[in-house]
C-alpha cells in the first residue's frame, strides 16, 4: 500500500469543498487519460476584486487525486486570481505533507485544473503543456517522456549522460535497464547503435582559454538571457557557485519544485554547454524538487 501522509488520508476520507458549485463562473476540466484521473474545478470569482470567493471540485481518481483536489480548493479560497495562478503543484504536495513520487502527477493535475479554470474565466484558450509517460526513475520521479526527449535533444548515448542531464538513474540504479532500452530506441532513430559501457558522448573537456572570472561572467550572461522567460512563468534563477564543471543554481518562485524543473534545468544546461563550448553540469541547490527527492531517496 502507498505510504500516504496522515494529511493525505485525512483529506481523502473527509474531502473539503466537494460537489457541484452553484453559480460558478470559472470551470477547469483536466485529466490524464493514461492514469485515469480526471478533475473538474469550479470557482466563484468576484468580478470586481478578482478574489476567489468559493472553490469546489469533482474528481474521478485515486486517493491522492481526491486529496490533492481537496487541498487545492483549500489553498486558493480567498486568494486573488493573480496569486492563485502562482500556486505550484509542489505547493499542493507540501500542503499535504508530501506525495509518493508515483503520485506527484495528481498534484500536477490540480495545478493544471486551476490554470484551466482561470483561462476559462478570462475567456482564453488553455493548452496543457506537458505529456506524461511511464515512471522510469523512482528515486527522482523522472518519466519516460522526459528521458526520451532529453536523449533526442542532446544526442545522448550513455546512461551516465542521461543521469547527468535528467538525474534519472542517479539513485538506486535499478532503472538502468529501462534507460538503456530508451537509449537504444532513440539512438536507432538517428542511425546509431547503443553500446553498454560506451564512452560518454559528452567528454569532459578542460575549460578553454577563459579565465575563471571570464567563465563565471559568461555563465552569468547566459543565465541573464534566460531569466525573462522564467520570470514570465513567475520563477527565477540565481547563480550560487561554479566548481569545475558543476554550476550550482538556485531556482526560486514558481520554478522551485515545479514538475517541469528538471526539464527547465536540462534546457538551461544545454544552452550553457553550447555557449561555453564545454560540458557543465547544472545542479540546483536548496529547495528544488531534486533536493527533496534526494532527501527521500
Amino acid at each position: 500500500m502507498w505510504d500516504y501522509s496522515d494529511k493525505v488520508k485525512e483529506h481523502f476520507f473527509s474531502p473539503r469543498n466537494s460537489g457541484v458549485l452553484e453559480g460558478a463562473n470559472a470551470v477547469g476540466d483536466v485529466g490524464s487519460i493514461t492514469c485515469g484521473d480526471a478533475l473538474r474545478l469550479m470557482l466563484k470569482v468576484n468580478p470586481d476584486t478578482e478574489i476567489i470567493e468559493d472553490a469546489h471540485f469533482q474528481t474521478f481518481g485515486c486517493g491522492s487525486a481526491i486529496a490533492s483536489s481537496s487541498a487545492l480548493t483549500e489553498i486558493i479560497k480567498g486568494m486573488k486570481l493573480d496569486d492563485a495562478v502562482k500556486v505550484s503543484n509542489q505547493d499542493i504536495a507540501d500542503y499535504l505533507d508530501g506525495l509518493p513520487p508515483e503520485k506527484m502527477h495528481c498534484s500536477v493535475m490540480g495545478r493544471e485544473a486551476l490554470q484551466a479554470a482561470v483561462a476559462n474565466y478570462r475567456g482564453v484558450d488553455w493548452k496543457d503543456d506537458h505529456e506524461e509517460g511511464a515512471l522510469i526513475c523512482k528515486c527522482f520521479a523522472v518519466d519516460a517522456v522526459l528521458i526520451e526527449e532529453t536523449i533526442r535533444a542532446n544526442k545522448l548515448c550513455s546512461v551516465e549522460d542521461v543521469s547527468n542531464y535528467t538525474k534519472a538513474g542517479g539513485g538506486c540504479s535499478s532503472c538502468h535497464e529501462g534507460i538503456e532500452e530508451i537509449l537504444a530506441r532513440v539512438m536507432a532513430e538517428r542511425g546509431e547503435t547503443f553500446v553498454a559501457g560506451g564512452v560518454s558522448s559528452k567528454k569532459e573537456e578542460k575549460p578553454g582559454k577563459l579565465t575563471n572570472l571570464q567563465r563565471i561572467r559568461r555563465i552569468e550572461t547566459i543565465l541573464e538571457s534566460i531569466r525573462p522567460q522564467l520570470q514570465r512563468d513567475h520563477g527565477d534563477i540565481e547563480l550560487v557557485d561554479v566548481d569545475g564543471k558543476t554550476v550550482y543554481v538556485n531556482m526560486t518562485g514558481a520554478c522551485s519544485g515545479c514538475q517541469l524543473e528538471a526539464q527547465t534545468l536540462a534546457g538551461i544546461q544545454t544552452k550553457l554547454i553550447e555557449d561555453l563550448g564545454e560540458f557543465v553540469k547544472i545542479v540546483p541547490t536548496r529547495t528544488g524538487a531534486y533536493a527533496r527527492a534526494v532527501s527521500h531517496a
Partner: protein
Amino acid sequence: MDGIYLDNNATTRVDDTVVAAMLPFFTEQFGNPSSMHSFGNKVGLAMKKARMQVQELLGAEHESEIIFTSCGTESDSTAILSALKTHPERKEIITTAIEHPAILTLCTHLEKEGYKIHILKVDEKGRLDLLEYAKLLSDQVAVVSVMWANNETGTLFPVERMAALANEAGVLFHTDAVQAVGKLPIDLKNSRIDMLSLSGHKLHAPKGIGVLYLKRGVRFRPLLRGGHQERGRRAGTENAASIIALGKACEQAMEAMQFENTEVKRLRDRLEAGILARVPRAFATGDVTNRLPNTSNIAFEFIEGEAILLLLNKFGIAASSGSACTSGSLEPSHVMRAMGIPYTAAHGTIRFSLSRYSTEEEVDRVIQVVPEIVGQLRKLSPYWADNAPVAEPGKAFAPTYA
C-alpha cells in the same frame, strides 16, 4: 488480526495445521536431506511424503514428475526457457493477452531476443478463440503457455483441450495453474499437459515454495545447475520446511475440494448478487458461467479502484483492484483492457477472492458496506449527478487530457 480478508487470489493465510507440520523442520529436524546421517534421513523421508501429497492433488502419474522450486514465477521461467533450449530450431511461442506478468514479461523479453510471440486475444468475457489458436500451432512453435484460471476474473481456459491440440501438433504445452490448483479437481495423468506451475502461498502453504510439474519423458533443461537436488533438475538445497508445509496444504486442499466448489461458491455468489442488487451501474467481469468458485470481479463505473480499496480498508475489508493507481503503473489492468472494458469502468474494478475461511457474516458485512462506499465516491465524481450518471457522461465531462 481482525478484518475481513477477501484477497485470497493475492495470497492466503497459512493454515494452523500446516504451520504445525513445518515447525519441527526448523529445530529438531534441521538436517540436510542429502546427508547420510539420520539427521538428514528423516527430512528426506518427510519430503518424500510431501512430494506424494502434491502428486495426489495434481493427479500426476509419478512422484518424480514433481520438481520443487521457489515460487510460481521460477516454475514458469524454468518451463518456458527449458522448452526453448530443447527446441533451438523453433523460434515461436504462443500465449494469451491476459497471462500473469510472470509469463508476459518473460515473453516480452524473449521477443527482444528474437523470438516471435503470438498473443491470443480474448473476447469481452475473457474467452479465447480456439480456431485462431489451432491455426498458429506449427513446427515453428517451441511452447504454448496458457494459464488455467485468470487471477483477476477467475475465468477458466480450456487448457486440457488446448494441450491435446498442441500435442497433436507436436508442440509442448505449459500451463500456469497457480490460481487453479487447490480450487479445481486436476488429473494430469489423463491430460496432455506437459508442464504445470503451482505456487504454495495460493493454497494456504507459505510463500517461497512452488512446484513445476514435468511430465515423464518431456525433454528438459534446468534453469539452475549445481547439486543433484530434485534429480539434478533444480539445484540448490531444498527448502525442506516449506516443502513439507506444501505437502500438508495439498492434502488439506484435496479434502476441502468439495467444500470449495459448493460452500465457497455459494458465498461468492451471495456476495456478487448482493452487491449487484444494491449498486447501480456495476457489473461482474469475465466469464461468470465458467470461473473459479472463489472469485468475483466487479466493475463499479465512474469511480476509481484505489479510492474504493482505501475506503474498504477503513472498514477492515481487504480486496484488490485493476486500477492503475494501485500498482504504480499508469495503465489499468491489462486483463480488463484485453476484454475491452472502458477506462471509466476498468479503473473501478474490484476483485473479491474468498477462501474456505470466509464466512457468511463477513460476506453480508461487505454487501452492506460496499453500496455506501460507492455512493460516497460517486458523489465526488464529475461523471455522476444525484443517483445516476450525468446524461451522456462522455460529453458532459470531457477534460483536456495530458
